[in-house]
């Protein structure tokens, strides 16, 4: 697929306290390879994005507050363009250029 762009630019947002793991910044603009591995023709999925975020963006060492068993930990909702990722194929969803991905930690306080 030589016509597809080399990179994707996506908006990544964190809410419900997850922003504390990412330099206390709620909104990030991320550029990442359109294929994973980048030399392959396999489209980059949310699963790949999550690993990318852990490796490249997370400053906090407590990785298991974000990822568990290779995917987003229980208690985090993932919203793709303002819709629950379960409506979009969960972590197999192929990331598109310009997507907005929101990670929300469920809250329990009252």
């Amino acid at each position, binding site marked *: 697929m030589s016509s597809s762009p080399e990179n994707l630019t996506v908006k990544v947002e964190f809410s419900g306290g997850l922003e504390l793991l990412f330099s206390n910044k709620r909104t990030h603009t991320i550029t990442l390879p359109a294929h994973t591995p980048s030399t392959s023709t396999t489209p980059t999925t949310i699963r790949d994005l999550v690993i990318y975020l852990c490796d490249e963006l997370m400053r906090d060492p407590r990785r298991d507050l974000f990822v568990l068993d290779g995917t987003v930990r229980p208690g985090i909702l993932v919203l793709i363009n303002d819709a629950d990722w379960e409506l979009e194929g969960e972590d197999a969803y192929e990331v598109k250029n310009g997507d907005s991905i929101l990670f929300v930690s*469920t809250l329990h306080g009252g």
Partner: protein
Amino acid sequence: SPPNRWPLSQDEYKRYGRQLIMPEIGLQGQLRLKNASVLIIGAGGLGCPAAAYLVGAGVGTLGLVDEDVVEHSNLHRQILHSTARVGMSKVDSALVSLQSLNPNVNLVPHHGRLTPETAISTVQPYDIVLDCTDTPASRYLISDTCVLLGKPLVSASALRIDGQLMVLNNPPRSAGDPTGGPCYRCIFPKPPPPESVVTCGDGGILGPVVGTMGVLQALEAIKVLTRASTSENEQPVTEPPTLLIFSAYANPMFRSIRLRARKPKCAACSAHATVTPEALNSGSLDYVQFCGMIDPVNLL
């Protein structure tokens, strides 16, 4: 009962006039509120404003569950309590304020915490439940109970500068009916790791943040209780399941997220449900262990 010529008293027409005249409520809606019973679990930062606006609106019966007593550190956000009532049970303290706001409402105190053994008998008499608690264990217990009993559930939570709101099990169809609304387990099948759970005591909470979520819980309950069927036999129209997320310092402050439908393998609301009334009553479902908490479950 046969329709009365004047189904409300003159005092009630005066008191509820401003909401009665709106087409969204009307006399029918006001009578639905008057015939409705609401259970609020947790008399803290969410439960206080939710109870105030539901009692103001004239629900027939309001039950309140809490095991705690009023502390000084509650008063910046738990607006039904008062400095003089520090040390009193939160349920009794809240009832003092609610009674003086609207003596027409039948107020029912439930001292103590909701447990798997008491949940079904406590929730059974009510038409709708508001989850105003503050631990994962109580949230799963309340959701399971509402699914088992067919009650809609207005669930909110808040921490620091963030809040969340969902109307669950709405409409409250039987387990296995995919047209029912999703339950808490549909959205969160597995509990969060205990080390990721932050309480308001540890993380802090801004008063108007939790206050906004509590007032919106009252609103959602009023919407569910007053919605009209288009005909006698038809089901009322319900909104698609939505998560409202609120963040006080974000722009925009509010976002609405479309949620999934019921999960075909949900442990509570699917045809394959393993959460049963027997399991709940017998105490064989240990929510505290399920959620991996070390501390006892505290309702705030």
